[in-house]
């Protein structure tokens, strides 16, 4: 259950600073508008509880917390561009969602002998989402990279305002196909949090199965993508085939390759009888065997492995500073995984996969995903030992009916959904996905590397553009 604390604008920074000093971490920031007035809120997350600190911005400006929590940089830039909120102390406040022609308004100034720019995108050479990267390079060495996303900004957050909670679910769903289960589960949890509902055992198990099936096809995809990043075609094709089989399992069990429509608010949306559960489990067991064999082959593929070590390093210090989440953080040696200690799903006693001597390079991000695939297969093996029932979320406490927070470990890391309700309707929905949290880390890991290695580094994070451009 989340608590909300309203503070005076002058006390805002001190309140956030105190929370950070106590070990809480920045988990997202968003603007809400009520009767024309802007309110700025930030989420602070501790291992168990989350809380929200809010302040009003009567004159359209609040104090920036970017000096306290660098992870808030994108949130503040987005709030400025989409809601016109100013952040005192955030200088320069570069454009993020606004696409200005003036390079000084959005790019890092980089100058020196032989420095030049390479512009890539928004349309890329392969089948890739739209986004623009501006590299500042000397020769082939990248000095810095500016990321410009929001080409596909669809205004989903604003468009869902005023809908009832079931109507707004469709918008959270549409944000991203590859994270559809994680995003909608976070949304459903946020609504349930606001209403004081708790998922029963059946609903928790069903949602956990769906989340792990989503992780399965994504991780298989990501391993294939890293192979593609170095042009190792056999690995690309083998893992593309494994991914397709995982999606065929999704389609057979839940009638959709991306598991669309499997999450509802306050109730389950899927069930699986004894024989369907057994079939799914058997298909997954076979896929696990083949995945293990394919992975062993990759480990001994010299032409692949020789390209990965020491490339695109994101070390633990920087990952903490930038607020990196998910496999990218774990590959840097941070043992954070929302599945550990989770109380709203069925991850009882779960321990996140970890690497010995994690350095945070491309090789580690690849190895970590392979290790996580094993834990995912084991979880599914265990959870699919019984038929799946729909389940429901039941009222078990008094709640605010106003604000709710949902947090789910998506394939790419912690994804947060904030919901503000007003008269039974969604007044504000804010989706802060793992991709959103991690894009600044990609730019950081890219600096100092060679330009031809960028696709590899980018694919080792394999973030969604759609999850940002919601």
């Amino acid at each position, binding site marked *: 259950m989340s608590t909300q604390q309203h503070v005076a604008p002058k006390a805002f920074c001190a309140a956030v600073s105190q929370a950070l000093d106590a070990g809480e971490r920045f988990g997202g920031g968003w603007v809400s508008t009520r009767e024309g007035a802007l309110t700025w809120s930030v989420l602070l997350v501790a291992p168990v509880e989350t809380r929200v600190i809010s302040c009003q911005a009567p004159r359209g400006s609040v104090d920036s917390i970017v000096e306290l929590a660098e992870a808030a940089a994108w949130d503040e830039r987005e709030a400025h561009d989409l809601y016109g909120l100013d952040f005192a102390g955030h200088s320069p406040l570069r454009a993020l969602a606004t696409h200005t022609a003036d390079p000084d308004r959005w790019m890092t100034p980089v100058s020196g002998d032989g420095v030049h720019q390479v512009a890539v995108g*928004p349309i890329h050479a392969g089948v890739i989402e739209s986004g623009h990267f501006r590299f500042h390079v000397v020769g082939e060495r990248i000095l810095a990279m500016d990321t410009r996303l929001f080409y596909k900004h669809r205004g989903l957050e604003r468009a869902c305002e005023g809908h009832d909670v079931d109507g707004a679910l469709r918008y959270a769903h549409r944000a991203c196909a590859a994270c559809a289960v994680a995003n909608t589960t976070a949304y459903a949890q946020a609504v349930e949090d606001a209403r004081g509902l708790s998922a029963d055992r059946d609903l928790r198990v069903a949602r956990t199965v769906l989340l792990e099936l989503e992780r399965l096809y994504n991780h298989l995809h990501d391993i294939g993508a890293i192979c593609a990043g170095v042009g190792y075609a056999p690995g690309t094709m083998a893992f593309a085939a494994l991914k397709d089989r995982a999606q065929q399992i999704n389609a057979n069990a839940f009638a959709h390759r991306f598991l669309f429509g499997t999450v509802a608010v306050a109730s389950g949306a899927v069930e699986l009888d004894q024989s369907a559960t057994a079939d799914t489990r058997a298909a997954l067991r076979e896929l696990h065997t083949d995945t293990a064999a394919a992975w062993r082959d990759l480990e001994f593929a010299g032409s692949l492995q020789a390209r990965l070590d020491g490339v695109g390093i994101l070390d633990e210090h920087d990952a903490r500073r930038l607020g990196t989440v998910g496999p990218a953080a774990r590959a840097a040696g941070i043992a954070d995984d929302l599945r550990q200690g989770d109380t709203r799903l069925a991850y009882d006693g779960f321990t996140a996969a970890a690497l010995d001597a994690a350095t945070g390079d491309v090789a580690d991000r690849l190895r970590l995903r392979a290790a996580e695939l094993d834990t995912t297969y084991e979880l599914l093996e265990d959870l699919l030992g019984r038929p799946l029932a729909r389940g429901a979320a039941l009222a078990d406490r008094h709640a605010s009916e106003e604000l709710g927070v949902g947090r789910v470990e998506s394939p790419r890391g912690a994804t947060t959904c904030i919901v503000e309700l007003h008269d039974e309707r969604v007044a504000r929905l804010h989706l802060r996905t793992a991709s959103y949290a991690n894009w600044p880390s990609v730019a950081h890991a890219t600096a100092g590397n060679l330009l031809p290695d960028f696709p590899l580094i980018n694919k080792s994070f394999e973030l969604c553009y759609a999850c940002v451009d919601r």
Partner: protein
Amino acid sequence: MFVLLRQLSTIRRDAGLTRGRPVSLAIRHVDAGSCNGCEHELGAVSNPFHDLQRFGLDIVASPRHADILLVTGAVTTRMAGPLRTAYDAMPDPRLVAGLGDCALALNVLGADSEFAGRLEDLLPVDIRIPGCPPTPDAIAEHLLAALARDTRSGADQLSTPPVTSNSAP
């Protein structure tokens, strides 16, 4: 360079050549505002279960090499310009395919102000592939049907360029 490219494009169009062996289609994909589902499935048509390349269908890196512009997503205001640029860069004859329900303006979700308009109103759409997202099988089926139309007769747009040139000597 652009003058040369335009000249070459005009020559190719005016020459009125039919495709020598019309058994391939080069596809250029543009994500105009999708949720990434169509991209995943478009990638899947190249996987070993579908291997669309065996039919002569291939994704190419540049619109200048492409026969078909395959558009995913509802066109956002910020992608309308790049989409138009990609289309303009394609040599004639060219086709446009709308991939997925969003590109076909079915059940689009979002704020109206973020979208540039229906793809159909921005570019001439020749091939429609519905689905959310369309399965790799459905994508393959529609693209192969387009290829079959192309192979079958000279009446199709792709086989015979539009008669806009002066064919007189």
